[in-house]
């Protein structure tokens, strides 16, 4: 059957990324956008675009009826949800199918199962996939049963995600107040105050396996990604392969990932997340039923275009390769470049990007959704781009990443680039000792280095003296004598 025309229900870098693979397959692409995004990169990259409402995501990108109506009106036969927005909404997946369109992702029932943190764990446990021991029930029941798991404990919201409603408990007297606080927080954030308690894994790593499953029952894995470098439960940098896995642990986890996908009746690209405890213990954490932000590191190391495979699978095709055909070669690292101010508690920094110069070169990939002159809005995720480097070895990829970050120019909004440079340069990261406490442990009091501060001030003073094109500054420049302003352009290297 094959997809002929695809609506991309997303924006930013991921929408641009999806369009690129769809194009290669000869699929026409329709972008949807909010009114403030009318000139955005994903709109410019598509074959056609439709405005679906106001800037607020609830009135545009999250409006299921509008997205589906746009697909029908433009003659699309499929919708790719990207990540975030409607990608893990079982109701949306069901509505798309009811409208007679292909949803590029798993079935609605699979999304619903995996979206329920406790039900998914129970299903996985039944399928023989190890899960972190946990208890759920009334507060009274948790108070009685949870301590039997052994401290420290972690309280999590059943409906949760993103760190909300989460509490670590390291001693018995903290349990009751922590249960109450977590439940209050969960109720406020998700409208559902139910929580569960699980054993807290000390010094964990976050390792996930990419899987691909077609609608003919074939499931393969594309090896792992390590995502332990996180700030407040948000991933900052990812890599493949993991420095922690030996051949045996990798094989056991891959096997569990494939088993998990099969047990869930999974179709399309998915990610099985594990908590890993050295040397070889692992537990199922959750399954992400969509394309992951960090999918490019797998594409770099396996040579498989995951979006292309998603579109082929959704079109009903069989996987063109078997597990034995897949290999992981070399090493890839991804850094998430955000419009945020690392000097001001990483608060989002919105505004106009006046100058955007991306790094490039052999084995450097930058998936971005912005360019010079674009506005970064407070309405959406502040991700500017995902910078990915590849090398024969981890060290080669790491040094390439450092060089690429240092050549990346973004003027107009603050970015976390200086922070990423210091993460990549850190001896613990270089040694591959990446645990989930890496950032709180080594970057608590981080401040950007300011080695070029005086030269930057000199540049500002030079530009100040030249005056602005409108001449608004001319008066001030005349009053303060500035010999450099009078010199004009110089010939460099001729001694003139």
């Amino acid at each position: 059957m094959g997809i002929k025309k695809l609506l991309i229900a997303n924006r930013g870098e991921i929408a641009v990324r999806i369009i690129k693979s769809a194009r290669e397959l000869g699929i026409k692409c329709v972008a949807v956008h909010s009114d403030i995004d009318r000139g955005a990169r994903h709109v410019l990259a598509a074959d056609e675009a439709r405005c679906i409402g106001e800037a607020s995501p609830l009135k545009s990108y999250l409006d299921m009826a509008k997205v589906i109506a746009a697909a029908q009106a433009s003659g699309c036969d499929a919708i790719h949800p990207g990540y975030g927005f409607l990608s893990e909404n079982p109701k949306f997946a069901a509505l798309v199918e009811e409208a007679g369109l292909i949803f590029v992702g798993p079935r609605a029932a699979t999304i619903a199962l995996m979206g329920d943190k406790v039900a998914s764990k129970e299903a996985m446990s039944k399928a023989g996939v190890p899960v972190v021991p946990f208890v759920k029930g009334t507060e009274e029941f948790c108070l009685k049963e949870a301590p039997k798991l052994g401290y420290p404990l972690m309280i999590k919201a059943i409906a949760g995600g993103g760190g909300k409603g989460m509490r670590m408990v390291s001693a018995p007297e903290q349990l009751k107040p922590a249960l109450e606080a977590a439940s209050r927080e969960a109720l406020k954030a998700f409208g559902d105050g139910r929580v569960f308690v699980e054993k807290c894994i000390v010094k964990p790593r976050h390792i996930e396996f990419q899987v691909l499953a077609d609608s003919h029952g074939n499931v393969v894995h594309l090896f792992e990604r390590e995502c332990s470098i996180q700030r407040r439960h948000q991933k900052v940098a990812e890599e493949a392969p993991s420095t922690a896995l030996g051949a045996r642990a990798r094989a056991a986890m891959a096997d569990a990932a494939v088993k998990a996908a099969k047990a869930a009746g999974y179709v399309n690209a998915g990610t099985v997340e594990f908590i890993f405890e050295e040397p070889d213990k692992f537990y199922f954490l959750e399954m992400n039923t969509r394309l992951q932000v960090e999918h490019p590191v797998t594409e770099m190391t396996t040579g498989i275009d995951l979006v292309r495979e998603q579109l082929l699978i959704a079109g009903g095709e069989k996987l063109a390769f078997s597990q034995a055909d897949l290999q992981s070669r070399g090493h890839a690292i991804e850094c998430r470049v955000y419009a945020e101010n690392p000097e001001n508690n990483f608060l989002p920094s919105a505004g106009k990007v006046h100058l955007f110069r991306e790094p490039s070169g052999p084995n450097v990939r930058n998936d971005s959704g912005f360019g010079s002159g674009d506005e970064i809005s407070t309405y959406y995720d502040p991700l500017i781009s995902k910078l990915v480097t590849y090398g024969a070895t981890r060290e080669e990829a790491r040094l390439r990443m450092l060089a690429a970050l240092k050549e990346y120019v973004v003027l107009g909004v603050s970015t976390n680039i200086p922070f990423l440079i210091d993460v990549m340069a850190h001896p613990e990261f270089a040694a591959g000792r990446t645990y989930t406490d890496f950032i709180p442990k080594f970057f608590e009091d981080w401040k950007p280095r300011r080695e070029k501060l005086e030269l930057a001030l000199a540049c500002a003073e030079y530009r100040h003296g030249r005056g602005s094109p409108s001449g608004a500054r001319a008066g001030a420049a005349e009053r303060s004598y500035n010999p450099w302003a009078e010199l004009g352009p110089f010939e460099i290297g001729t001694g003139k």
Partner: protein
Amino acid sequence: MNLYTIGEEKFEVEFKKDGVLVNGKEAAKSVVFEQLPGEGLLMKLGDSVLPAFVHREGDVFFCWVAGETYKICALDQDSPQDSSRHEAGEKALIAPMPGKVVKVLVKAGDGVKRGAKLMIIESMKMETEIAAPADGIIAAVKYGEGEVFKEGEVLVEINKPV
């Protein structure tokens, strides 16, 4: 000579015939600049040339030099509009990031104590309280509830009590 700020810090920058002075200390000997078309700028330091990118937006200079990026604000010493006015008895509360006013808790003429909540703002789903930095009297509330502001704009002005 001109005054600049980076964050809260103030810098005095002066070009002399034989070098650049920052806060009166020599920062570099003989720098020669060449403006390229667009934002590119060449900095000749002795025999080596360092590339830089500078974008000017009013009084703000965004500078990139060798992998480091700075947001540098020029302080206009002649204009009565500059921030030194605030030191002379008036304080302005500047928006730390772009966002929207959720709630205004004071009005012009109100007396406030240091730390009093003046306004609640929201940016990217996070709420932040704007508190009075010192005792004073509200001179002006520049934005109403539901209004959107940009980074660096004055939200509330406070006069010191007389």
